[in-house]
């Protein structure tokens, strides 16, 4: 049994569906990538697993398994507060990113079994005991993800205090050790410093130190390198790889960067418009991309071996050009290989180890 098994996860913000039946699994000690462009639902997926989405109305609570479209009667916009993914989703209300007046809670359904326990149906207090201990998260923006008025030492020791019962000098010592572990020089002095006194790379290291403080079995990293310089990106990825290799931590890597995927992941799930469109072991995916979206993503990577005057090949259109999955392939409006069959109904995810959601896969290959 996998450490984390996500089954048919659905997340809706009012009338707009951000995640539309996503399933994947993360094995112990493995690195699994969730890949896709902004708004495909990858961040929302990770927040749902962590239980960090603003709560929806209790009547349609977490265990509810009816289709999410049922919530369409309430005209709320997508939730704000960093849930950028909700903004560009198919049926998203025009009020992009604006907070709805009544909190704009998320309706979450499906299953996210961690070690056999469904995280989505856990009581909030029970989930709080697990968060930061069994599963931890590293966020995208190290500049805004640390509290500006609390010394970083305290921001580390509070996790140690909460989950490992360490206090005072013991906690400070362990915090210094953690900073040292993530490659911050002179850790004892750094403990007293505030986030604004550290560089972006340093702050991301601090966030990683916080995340690994209780040796979690699952680490979720939501675009941990997006806000950093390229050289720092490499260092941070190296650090994550090292942590996974030495501690045996499972890592769910959320990224839009296929370079990161190639260097780090064992398996990849490509998301488009709230659904998995292709999933495969990493080598297989790069060797035989099947879904036109994956092919497009790979084609749009700048290549060193092409002349500087060669134009890049982008995927045409934008993620806003979609049709609803039940009417056909959501990617069809942007697809170069689109045919009648593509919009004739809901495309199924086919295949086992290397699965894809394209009715014309065989013709394309």
């Amino acid at each position: 049994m996998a450490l984390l098994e996500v089954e048919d996860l659905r997340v809706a913000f009012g009338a707009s569906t951000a995640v539309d039946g996503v399933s994947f699994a993360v094995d112990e000690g493995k690195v699994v990538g969730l890949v896709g462009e902004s708004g495909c639902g990858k961040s929302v997926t990770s927040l749902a697993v962590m239980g960090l989405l603003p709560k929806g109305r209790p009547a349609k609570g977490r265990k509810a398994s009816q289709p999410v479209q049922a919530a369409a009667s309430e005209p709320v916009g997508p939730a704000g507060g960093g849930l950028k993914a909700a903004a560009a989703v198919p049926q998203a209300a025009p009020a992009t990113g604006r907070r709805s007046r009544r909190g704009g809670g998320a309706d979450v359904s499906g299953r996210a079994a961690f070690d056999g326990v469904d995280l989505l149906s856990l009581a909030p207090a029970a989930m709080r005991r697990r968060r930061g201990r069994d599963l931890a998260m590293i966020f995208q923006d190290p500049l805004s993800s640390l509290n500006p008025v609390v010394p970083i030492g305290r921001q580390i020791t509070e996790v140690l205090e909460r989950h490992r019962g360490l206090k005072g000098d013991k906690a400070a010592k362990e915090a210094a050790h953690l900073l040292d572990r993530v490659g911050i020089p002179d850790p004892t002095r750094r403990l007293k410093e505030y986030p604004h006194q550290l560089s972006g790379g340093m702050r991301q290291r601090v966030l990683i130190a916080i995340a690994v403080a209780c040796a979690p079995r699952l680490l979720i990293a939501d675009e941990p390198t997006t806000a950093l310089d390229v050289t720092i990106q490499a260092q941070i990825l190296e650090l994550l790889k090292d942590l996974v290799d030495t501690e045996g931590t499972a890592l769910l890597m959320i990224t839009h960067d296929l370079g990161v995927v190639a260097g780090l992941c064992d398996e990849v799930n490509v998301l488009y418009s709230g659904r998995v469109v292709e999933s495969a072991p990493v080598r297989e995916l790069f060797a035989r991309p099947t879904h036109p979206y994956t092919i497009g993503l790979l084609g749009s990577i700048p290549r060193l071996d092409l002349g500087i005057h060669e134009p890049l090949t982008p995927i045409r259109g934008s993620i806003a050009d979609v049709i609803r999955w039940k009417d056909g392939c959501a990617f069809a409006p942007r697809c170069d290989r689109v045919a009648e069959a593509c919009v004739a109904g809901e495309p199924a995810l086919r295949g086992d180890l290397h699965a894809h959601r394209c009715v014309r896969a065989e013709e394309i290959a």
Partner: protein
Amino acid sequence: MLRYTVKRLLQLSVALLGLSLLLFAWFKALPGGPENRLLPENATDQQREALRASLGLDDPVWVQYGEFLGRIVRFDFGSSLSSGRPVATELADRLPATIELSLAAMVIAVGIGIPLGYLAAKRRGTWLDFTAVSGSLLGTCIPIFFLAAMLKVVFAQELGLLPTAFRLSAGAQYTDVTGLRVLDGLITGEFDVAWDALLHLVLPAIALSSIPLAVIVRITRASVLDVVGEDYVRTADAKGLKPATIRGRHVMRNAMLPIATIIGLLLGSLFAGAVLTESVFAFGGIGSFVYQATTERDYPALMGFILVIAVFYVVINLIVDLSYGFLDPRVRVRK
């Protein structure tokens, strides 16, 4: 931190100097110089000239300003025209009552306003939020003297729950230490006096707290709403911290920054705004003195009052600035 403090002090003394210049100009611009007030109406022009010379009113303006500055630095505002006593003494006698009243009002406003604003933010869109927001709108709309009079009529006169006026019951014996009666009672161990003073303080303090309470509720609500959407609050949540820890360490510590500023400004305005409340409850503070001085054109008294209020504002601003440095490490380090 020391550098920051010194810098702030220098800036504040410049502000005070500017104020003294304004006051001096105002004083000069008043029609009919003091000689008309001091001499009988049938005085000759020669007598007037002589008095003007002896008062130094014929000296160059900058010399006069220098002397004026010298006097106010020594808290010498001259004598009140109506009572004949030195203005400084009059103010010193009445200041403690106003300070006590303002502080009591602020304790109410902060004690209720911050928790209420927090709850309104956390339960945004519920009846509680609606009540808090519309209540605070009402609070800023009701004129203070009306509210004070209504409180007095209902709770003191009709229901007889609390005293109608003054700072202590008639004939009460007390020992003066700080002039703040409740505090004095606690210091000297005269708890009956402290209790009596507290009862007399309740209604005026509630009346005076209405506006700051309303403002604090709104600022707190807005500030908390701002902060709970921040990424670092989500990080705190992702750590699995207890809700109380998230609230105290991560939300409120950041939300307090704008609230602290507003509290400082409000305290200054309370001090000046106590005039109306004090006159309704015959509280015997600076307010009734100023009211009298205004109606009788007692300029030295008014000038003394304005200066005291200005110094008060300036000191509070300094405290707010320093507390900002304490609350926000980013301010502390900035050169």
